[in-house]
């Protein structure tokens, strides 16, 4: 089961790395250029993580098998709002 694209980290990994970057930026004695680079990496990670959260479209389907044993899906009727 693939998590994320080829080079992008998973959401979890991205979040972890983001926290690492922040820690380094806040507590480490980073030289200014490295601090800039860390900041850029952090911004990029925030962007990627947001993207990952919104990526997958909500979809609910029923998984069924036909007579030949092949799978096909049908949308599952969901009720909008509960009574």
């Amino acid at each position, binding site marked *: *089961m693939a*998590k994320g694209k080829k080079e992008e980290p*998973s*959401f*979890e990994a991205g*979040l972890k790395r*983001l*926290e690492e*970057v*922040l820690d380094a*930026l*806040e507590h480490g004695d*980073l030289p*200014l250029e490295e*601090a*800039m680079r860390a*900041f850029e990496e*952090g*911004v990029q990670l*925030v962007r990627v*993580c*947001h993207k*990952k*959260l*919104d*990526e*997958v*479209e*909500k*979809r*609910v*389907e*029923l*998984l*069924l*098998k036909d007579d030949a044993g092949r*799978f096909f*899906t049908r949308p*599952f009727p*969901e*009720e909008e709002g*509960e009574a």
Partner: protein
Amino acid sequence: MGAAGIISSRRTGKCDTIIRLISMKPELPHIYTVTALTREIRDRLETYFSLVWVSGEVSNLRQPLSGHYYFTLKDAGSQLKAVLFKGSHQHMRFKPQEGSQFLCRGRLTVYEPRGEYQLVVDYLEPLGQGALALAFEALKTRLKDEGLFAPELKKPLPFLPRKIALVTSPTGAAVKDFLRLLGQRCPNVEVLIYPVKVQGAEAAGEIAAALNDLGAFPGVEVIVLARGGGSLEDLWPFNEEVVARAIHRCPVPVVSAVGHEVDFTIADFVADKRAPTPSAAVELVAPDKAELKRRLARLGATLAGALARRRDLARQHLNLMARQLPDVRRSLVDLRLKVDDKAETLVRRVHRSVTRQAQALRLASSRLFLLSPRRSLTGARQRLAQAAQMLGQSWRRRQTEPRRHLENCQNQLEQLNPLAILQRGYAVATLLPQGTVIRDATLVSPGAAIRVRVAQGRMDCEVKIVSSE
């Protein structure tokens, strides 16, 4: 049955008497009061039926404010009133259910005011419960010993799955609850519902098949087994071995969300995670998107803040350094003066040095000139010419020398030629016969024979007179 067998301490003296009378005089029937008879019946029943097990269908179940359960146990032919007091049942696992078959344990008694006998229940369970419970325990022990429940086998759930599979009844309440809660918590996820029966004889097979199929279905990152609450029989498919093995074999993590919080099925033990309620299941499989978004926003803000702080720090540092720099302009003037001074000295010294060097050079130059090979060369050339001349001269001399020398020698030789001497008129006298040259006349005696050699010829003579002058 003798009189003694039914005597109880609550008898009045009158009854005693009557009974004795009856046993002694069969003609007179014993006449009870209602209360007395009822009481006697009660005693007999309580003694004889102090502990009974009864099975039957529960009906007319009611539970008034007191909290006690009142119901009737019945079967096709008869019925029995029963009561289950609050004190007894509040710690009991099973509660009576209208229409279900139950197994009850209790004692018979008579409620005297109404003359009704009833069963005071102190324990009940659904019929067949015992067998099921045993089967449950047996299977649980067996699978546990095989290691199917081992914690090391539990797979971690994905943090943000893209596709969740739900094995459940498509018409049950569980699926609605799950989808609603999931939509609230994390809408960006695909859900694949695999419809199965969740109770009855075919359910276990369908659930196992679902797990087999989904375990190989592309993209499925986590599987949730969901079913609402129910009795042990209702939940039984989730205690079946075929389901347990299907969960165990499944390569995808499985969450078991079966029944209510108090219900534990074997599926719960084998699964990678157990959810006591549908909302717990949703929390396990999906992260709270809103919370994650907030967290990202916070991190983003902190990031910006951290960079700003870092920049300020750098700026402060720079300012500090700048303040520590000495006033450049003042030191610039000092330096200029210093430089000029040094430059002057430098020029002077260089000049002096150069002059000295020039002198030394000139001196050396003239010395050198004196030693110039050209001079000696000229001298040498002269000497060479002279030598050459001399060589020439001496060569010529050498050439003529020997000749002259030879001539000289010749002359000398001619002069020394004894014969030349003879030419000048001298004569050589030699004593005969020896031939020795006579230089001293005294050595010769008169009358000796001598030879006298003159330039031309010789004379053999005889000596006459000898004198020393």
